[in-house]
C-alpha cells in the first residue's frame, strides 16, 4: 500500500513539475502544435472508423430492443445521447491511449534508455519542458476535438443503419434527436475527454520517463502506459459522469 502511495506521489510530482515548466521560458508553442498534429495523425483515422461502427451497431441493437415495444422513433436520440456523453469520450480515450499514448511511452522510453534524456539535461534543456509539457497540453486539447469528431461520425453511422437498414423514418429520427439533446450533453462529453486526454498523456510520458533496462524496458513501459491508461479512463469516467453536469431532462 505504501508502495502504491509512493508511486502515486512520484507520478503527481512528475505531472506537477511538467506543468510548472509550461510557465517558464522559453515557451514552446511550436512543440505543442507539433504534438497536436502527431496525436491527430496517429488517431484520426482509427477514431473515425471506431466511431462509425460503434454508432452503427448501437443503432442496430437499440432498434432491436425499441421495435419490440414500438418506440423505434427513439433510436436516434438514444444513439446520440450515448455517443456524445459516454461512448465518444471513453472510446476515443481508449483508442488514443492505444495509439498516441503508447507511442509517447515508446518514444520517451527509448530516449531514456539511449541516454537522449540525459543528453537533453546535459545540454541544459529540461526534458520535462521539452518532451512532457507540450504533450500534456496537446493531449488535453486533442481529445475533445477527436471526441467531437467521434460524435459526428458515430451519429452518421447510427443514422445510416437506423434509416437505411432498419427503416426508421428519417424525419422522426432527426426530430427526436433534436428534442432530447441539450448542449450540455456535448459539453459533458468534451469536458470528460479533456480529463482523459490529460491523464493518458501524463501516464504515457511517465511510463516512458521511468523506463530502464534497454529495449525490453521500453516494451514494458509501453505496455504499462496502455494498461494503466485504460483502467484510469474507465474508472475515472464513472466519477466524472456523476460530477460533470449533463443535459438531463425529464419529459
Amino acid at each position, binding site marked *: 500500500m505504501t508502495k502504491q502511495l509512493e508511486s502515486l506521489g512520484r507520478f503527481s510530482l512528475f505531472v506537477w513539475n511538467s506543468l510548472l515548466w509550461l510557465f517558464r521560458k522559453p515557451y514552446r508553442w511550436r512543440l505543442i502544435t507539433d504534438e497536436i498534429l502527431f496525436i491527430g495523425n496517429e488517431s484520426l483515422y482509427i477514431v473515425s472508423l471506431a466511431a462509425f461502427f460503434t454508432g452503427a451497431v448501437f443503432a442496430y441493437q437499440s432498434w432491436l430492443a425499441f421495435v419490440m415495444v414500438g418506440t423505434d422513433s427513439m433510436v436516434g436520440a438514444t444513439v446520440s445521447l450515448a455517443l456524445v456523453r459516454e461512448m465518444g469520450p471513453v472510446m476515443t480515450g481508449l483508442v488514443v491511449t492505444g495509439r498516441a499514448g503508447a507511442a509517447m511511452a515508446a518514444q520517451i522510453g*527509448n530516449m531514456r534508455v*539511449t*541516454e*537522449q534524456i*540525459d543528453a537533453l*539535461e546535459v*545540454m541544459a534543456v529540461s526534458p520535462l519542458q521539452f518532451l512532457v509539457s507540450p504533450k500534456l497540453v496537446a493531449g488535453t486539447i486533442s481529445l475533445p476535438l477527436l471526441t467531437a469528431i467521434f460524435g459526428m461520425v458515430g451519429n452518421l453511422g447510427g443514422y445510416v443503419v437506423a434509416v437505411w437498414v432498419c427503416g426508421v423514418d428519417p424525419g422522426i429520427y432527426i426530430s427526436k434527436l433534436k428534442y432530447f439533446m441539450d448542449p450540455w450533453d456535448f459539453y459533458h462529453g468534451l469536458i470528460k475527454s479533456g480529463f482523459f486526454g490529460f491523464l493518458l498523456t501524463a501516464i504515457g510520458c511517465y511510463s516512458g520517463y521511468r523506463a530502464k533496462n534497454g529495449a525490453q524496458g521500453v516494451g514494458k513501459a509501453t505496455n504499462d502506459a496502455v494498461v494503466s491508461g485504460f483502467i484510469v479512463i474507465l474508472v475515472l469516467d464513472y466519477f466524472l459522469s456523476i460530477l460533470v453536469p449533463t443535459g438531463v431532462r425529464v419529459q
Partner: protein
Amino acid sequence: MNDQDVALEFKEVWKKFSNSATPTLAGMSFQVRKGSIHVLLGHSGAGKSVTLKHFLGLIVPDEGHIFVKGQDIGKCGDVELTRLRKTFGMLFQNSALFDGLDVLENVAFPLREHRREMREEEIVRRVEDLLESVELRNIVQKMPSELSGGMRKRVGLARAIALGPEILLFDEPTTGLDPETARVIDDLIVSTTRRLKATSLIISHDIHASLRIADFVSMIWEGRIIETASPADFVKSRDPVVKQFLESAGVTAVSNAGKL
C-alpha cells in the same frame, strides 16, 4: 595541485544504488587539472559512467562533495546548475544523438537552445564548420540511424563542442570502433581539447590509446581511485591491480618506455 588549477574534483564520494549490495563508488576522491587530458581507466561495471554523470548532476551522490571549477555542485540551485552545464560538453557512451532529428538538427540543437540570437544561415554555417572540424562532410541531411558507429561518435563530438565548452567529458569515445577510426577520434579529442583550451576527462578501456593521449591516467577499482599518475609513471605503478590490468593488456614498463 593549487585549488586554482583544479577543474574537476571528487571528495570522498559515496554512491550505492538500491538494487546492488555493494556501493558503486566507495569514498572516491580525485582531481582533474585544468587544461589537461585525464583518462579514467577501469573494468566494465567499475562505475566509470556513473562517475562522469556525477559531474553533471545527473546522478546525486549519497555522501561526499563534487566540485566543478571550485564550485560545490551539491550546493548549486537549479539556475546555477544549468549555467554550469552550459560550460560542459559530453559525448555519451552510445553517442545519444536525438534519433528523431537529422545530423544538422542534432548539432544545431545546443545552438538553437542557447544561442537564440543566431540567424538561420549562421547556424547552418556553424554546424558545417563543426562537422568539418570532426572531418565529416555532406551528411547534414542523414538521420542518426543511417550513420556508422564512428560517424555517430563524431557527430556527438561536434554537438558536444558546439557551444565551445570549457570541460569535455567522453564516455568511451572509441569503444567498438576499428583501430584506425579509434585513432582518428583520439586525435580529434586531443586537437579539440587543445584548440578550445579545454579540460578533458575521458573514460576508456583502451590502455594503449590512453597512455598515448593522456596527461594523467587514473584507475578505478572497487569504487575508489587506486592510482593517478602521468602515463610514464602509471606504467611503473607498484599497485598490484594496476600491474595486473597493464599485464592483461600486454603493457610492460619497458615496452612502453620507448613509445613515450
